[in-house]
């Protein structure tokens, strides 16, 4: 792959992507596309974005060789791209800053967003506080329970958090409500979508804002090792941290790209979020992509211990990279992720987000099958503080069940 110029002018990545939204939103989406094109060519826009990323977010983030984890895996060296060290604790802020600056350019002072784990909601609320924008966040009722602390954070930052009880009351339903809200308030409101999904230009724009992860990784890795890494590993819900770290490496054929989905209780159960592994192409939330759905085209509920991966679709560009075999996609179960959550905490003193723990689990397996001279970079997309409570509950439940001799 010498050149890679996707998407095309209609926002299509091969058969995937596009703009499948109600007509009410078309004007806003076409305007956003135009404004983004203008901003891309505007030196001042980049200067301001880069200044905030450096001074406010704390970029660039370290590329850390996790020697203990590498030794444990027994094979390739595992590097961690420390997106967990960003302000607000995850990669989500890279995109939130870019889009919020774009909203200000368009004269839109109101922001609506969806959130699953709450990381994107916190990042959005943070940037809105910084830039003095009104902020309303839709979050599934179920996720609000799982991530109570993040809800309080958003409110502390001045955002209004709206609980969504329809459907599975998770990320998918929060996106539905955020879209409905946007339809009704499109004149003065920007939808700050948190992942590489939704209608064009969102998948491209979010990828571009997140590709700072891959750019830094590439430069730093070459500087230190004089070569490219052999593999990149990242977890995938919608797929923004993965697209961000993959994108600058797509043309480098020697670098294998691995996306890690949530297998929940197992991909052969009905309780997983493995859209690429088990889904088929379909249209949801503005985009043609791999989707968990039944034979009648009704969207199925996704399940994962990690609220951030709990989504039945996956970005259109990942759908394309899967079909073109440029990237490979695997799934990691709740139990494996929990184990890696503890493993990284003990071995490296780094508590990862449950989302990122999926990537760690896969990277350990992968490293053990590779040579000691080879190198893997894992995108450690977020820190695990938000998950400590849920993990504690789950571990205590596990112990209880053990003592009763029950097999889960």
């Amino acid at each position, binding site marked *: 792959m010498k050149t890679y110029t996707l998407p095309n002018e209609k926002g299509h990545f091969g058969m995937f992507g596009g703009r499948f939204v109600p*007509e009410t939103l078309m004007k806003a989406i076409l305007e956003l596309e135009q404004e983004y094109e203008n901003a891309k060519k505007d030196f001042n826009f980049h200067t301001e974005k880069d200044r905030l990323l450096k001074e406010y977010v704390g970029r660039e983030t370290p590329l850390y060789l996790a020697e203990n984890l590498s030794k444990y895996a027994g094979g390739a060296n595992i590097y961690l791209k420390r997106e967990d060290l960003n302000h607000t604790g995850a990669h989500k802020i890279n995109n939130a800053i870019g889009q919020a600056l774009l909203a200000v350019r368009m004269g839109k002072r109101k922001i609506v967003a969806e959130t699953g784990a709450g990381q994107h909601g916190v990042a959005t609320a943070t940037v809105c506080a910084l830039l003095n924008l009104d902020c309303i966040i839709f979050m599934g009722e179920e996720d609000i329970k799982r991530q109570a602390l993040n809800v309080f954070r958003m409110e502390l930052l001045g955002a209004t958090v709206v609980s969504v009880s329809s459907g599975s009351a998770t990320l998918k339903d929060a996106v539905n409500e955020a879209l*409905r809200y946007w339809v009704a308030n499109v004149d003065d409101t920007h939808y700050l979508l948190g992942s590489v999904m939704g209608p064009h230009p969102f998948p491209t724009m979010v990828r571009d804002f997140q590709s700072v992860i891959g750019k830094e990784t590439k430069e730093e890795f070459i500087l230190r090792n004089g070569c490219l890494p052999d593999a990149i590993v990242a977890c995938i819900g919608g797929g923004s941290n993965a697209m961000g770290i993959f994108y600058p490496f797509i043309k480098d054929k020697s670098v294998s790209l691995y996306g890690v989905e949530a297998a929940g209780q197992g991909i052969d159960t009905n309780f997983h979020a493995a859209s690429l592994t088990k889904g088929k192409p379909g249209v949801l939330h503005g985009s043609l992509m791999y989707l968990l759905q039944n034979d*009648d085209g*009704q*969207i199925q509920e996704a399940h994962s211990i990690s609220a951030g991966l709990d989504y039945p679709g996956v970005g259109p560009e990942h759908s394309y990279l899967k079909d073109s075999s440029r990237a490979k996609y695997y799934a990691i179960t709740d139990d494996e992720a929990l184990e890696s959550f503890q493993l990284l905490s003990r071995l490296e003193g780094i508590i990862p987000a449950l989302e990122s723990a999926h990537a760690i689990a896969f990277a350990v397996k992968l490293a053990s099958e590779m040579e000691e001279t080879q190198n893997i970079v894992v995108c450690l997309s977020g820190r695990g503080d938000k998950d400590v409570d849920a993990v504690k509950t789950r571990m205590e439940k596990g112990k209880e069940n053990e003592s009763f001799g029950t097999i889960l």
Partner: protein
Amino acid sequence: MNRLEQSFELLNENDGKAFVPYLMAGDGGLECLVDRLLLLEKFGATAIEVGVPFSDPVADGPIIQNAGIRALKSRTTLKGIITELAKARELVTIPIILMTYLNPIYAYGIGAFVQDIQNAGVDGCIIPDLPIEEEDMLVPQLAEAQIELIRLVTPATPLERIKQIAGRGKGFLYMVTVKGITGTRNLFQHDLNQFLRAVKELSPIPVLAGFGISSQEQINELTKYCDGVVVGSRIVELFEKNNLSEMEILMSIFNKNHK
């Protein structure tokens, strides 16, 4: 000329206005669909919009969302709906328009879908998440089968784009009266009339207003500026409450005016 064009021509000759009710297929059980269609025809419907339930209806408000949930709970499928519509076609003479989000069609297979709805005598489709930018995936097949794609314009659509959208269709133009989702409303934006007039002027095909329409007063006001109305949430609500007399009164509006 298909049934839709014929209906509107007839309406035009009689100087009448169109009343297009919407119902959710499978709400109350799929077995009552044919009877409900016959009832709506008897009450004076110009055409009927038949909704296909979808798990994630982003353009719909609570009333239609909940009707969709009820329909899905009673295991309604697109295939089942098409089978019932084929039966209905032998009894119902007015046009039938299928209103569905894109994914159920995509999962069905576009070729098979068009063939099956053609055989079932469906006259048109409304697909709220298929803007003109993406319609090439479906429109050539529909055109071949002489099935109209009914396109939507909204108060957020610029005039130039309204012209472009209106120029593509042969059935009617669906003019959304609000920036928002479906559902009954008491008040419309104060500058709505101006928008309706502009759309009517730009459109070479009949213009029907829809979204948020629930009363005869609203209908009388809106049809000063357009060729008819689509009434969704209110009809769905009345079916659910089994308040058929209220439905008959609401739908008799043009019979009184134009007999």
